[in-house]
């Protein structure tokens, strides 16, 4: 969680005292921090068991790609010159923003579904929880 704290501190710095830093650098740093925070927290939700190792790699790589997509949008935007071809009728950076930032993260949903029983909530954990509830160990609130 210290990593998340560092990312958030850097984000605040980029907003409030980053005026002297070129905008392209500020936006890249901000984008990396955004992807980093989400990546760290998502990885915390994968089980630390051996069976989760491959999925942890997939999720980790996925968030690296997500960060890369954000950087691509920034770089494509500053390098665009009128007259360049327009994919699907949009500027390249806009197309990347719409499809890369939006649809790519659906990969995470696919990973979530595919790996649910092995790396997120295993049948053993579910059975254990059911056992706790049936033993009457639930505690009324208040």
């Amino acid at each position, binding site marked *: *969680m*210290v990593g*998340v*704290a560092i990312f*958030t*501190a850097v*984000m*605040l710095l*980029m*907003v409030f005292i980053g*005026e002297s830093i070129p*905008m392209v650098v*500020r*936006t890249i740093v*901000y*984008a990396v921090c*955004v992807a980093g*925070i*989400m990546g760290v*927290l*998502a990885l*915390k*939700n994968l089980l630390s068991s051996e069976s989760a190792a491959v999925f942890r790699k997939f999720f980790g790589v996925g968030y690296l790609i997500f960060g890369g997509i*954000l950087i691509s*949008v*920034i770089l*494509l*935007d500053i390098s*665009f010159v009128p007259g360049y071809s*327009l994919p*699907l*009728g*949009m*500027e390249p*950076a*806009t197309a*990347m*923003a*719409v499809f890369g*930032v*939006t649809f790519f*993260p*659906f990969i*995470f*949903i696919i990973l*979530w*579904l595919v790996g*649910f029983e092995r790396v*997120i*909530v295993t049948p053993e954990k*579910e059975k254990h*929880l059911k056992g*706790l*509830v049936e033993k009457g*160990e*639930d*505690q*009324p*609130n*208040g």
Partner: protein
Amino acid sequence: MDDRTLMLSIIAAYMLSCLGIGVWAAKQTKSSSDFFVAGKSAGIVVMGFASFSTVLSGFGFIGGPGLVYKFGTSSFWICLPAALGLSFSGILLAKRFKTFAELFDILTLPDAVAKRYNSEVCRLTAAVVILIGVIAYLGTNILAFGAVAATFFDINFTTAAIIGMTVVIGYAVFGGIIAGLYTDVFQGTLMMFAGVAVFWIALTTVGDGNFFAGTRNITDVFTAAGQKNAIGPWGVLGPMACLSYLFLFQFGGTGQPHTITKMFMARDFKTVKWSPALAAIAYMLCVLLWVSVGFAMKYLVLTGAAEALPVGHEDNAAPRFLMDHTPAWLAGIVFSGLFAAIMSTADSFLNIGAGVFVRDIPRAILKRPVKNELVWARTATFIIAIAATFFALWAKKHGDLIAILGIFGWGLFAAAFVPMVTIGFNWKRATWQGAVAAAVTGLVVNVGLDLASKYPREAPLYFVPNAVSAGAIALTASVLVMIIVSLSTKPQTLDPLVEEAVDY
């Protein structure tokens, strides 16, 4: 039958169906557990549709196109990440919330927070934030209802807003969350159909009959009109603002009580597995309306085919487009879906707000529950609805756009509950002091920056650099405060079952 009569007939049929669902739900609602968490019996479809329908309210269907009309693609960085926020909240919270709901008597978000931190101060803090946010967010939806109804029925905005709230009170007071959940399934289906259909019509309209020429024509016309910024990746607001919205709406989505509390209602872990995916996909289909209508309306204005919307009335983009450029039967369905979206979100918020009054504040302050919770829940629903209506009318008088108010409400919840819930339920070292400090920081920063950018009216005090979202700054600051204060305070010894649930 003329077009207007057809539209009115469809809307009337829909409203009667909603009220019918409300009556049916009232008969199913026999306890406070039924009223707040539908008896923890929601399946995949109900939970998935309820999650996305609650997010896609008047904010999405009316405020969204208005934002696109005004700021171009900047608005994409709100609507598109919000879809991912739905699935992200599933990844970060679903299994933990489901576990809490199984192990403990959890009916509300403050219940869960109080149990996690073993702290009634946390419960009270969460309750206060919810009350403030609910009134702001409900205000958004009342404004949206007023905007649509005033345009459609050609009536005074205040009258329209009051009519809308009356209908919501009707089924929220008696049906509780069960009314909202089952209405969400019905209207979610309508909204998905409406989103795809209107997207097709919008792009075909601007493509001069050719759907595939739509985006190209938009690019050409906007470029020729000197509004190239509006169609770039960052829109009018620029990259820092857009990235701040990405952060606020994707990460902040995990702190929205009206969606995450749905996880308490899940019937089983299979529901928890599939519903985030269903919600995200369904939401994306609906959001097609958001992204297309604003551009289509602006395109029509730039080409002289439609009158420009006055400044401050950009929220009329969607109603105007629907009335003037879609077939009457489709406009009727979409308007029905719009009204439904607004009402179901309002119902969710009323339900959450009622929970605060009836369950959380008495437990936090009086240390005991109230008697006749169900009766008091219905009474509180009524009172909150009236307060929100007054707030909405005040906001309208001060010229707030629907989406701007919605962003404020979203940011308020995000800044308080992302640290308290998303971080706190994923990190055993989080302490109650960190949670409370974070919530207070979020509230102060969000409200402070918002007020500073508006008042005094003739020369506002402060504008955040590069149009970065105040809500995103509040969220960032509150997460940082949460971690620093938690690490600086004594670690809490957790109840073994709480530790098991957080460690899941």
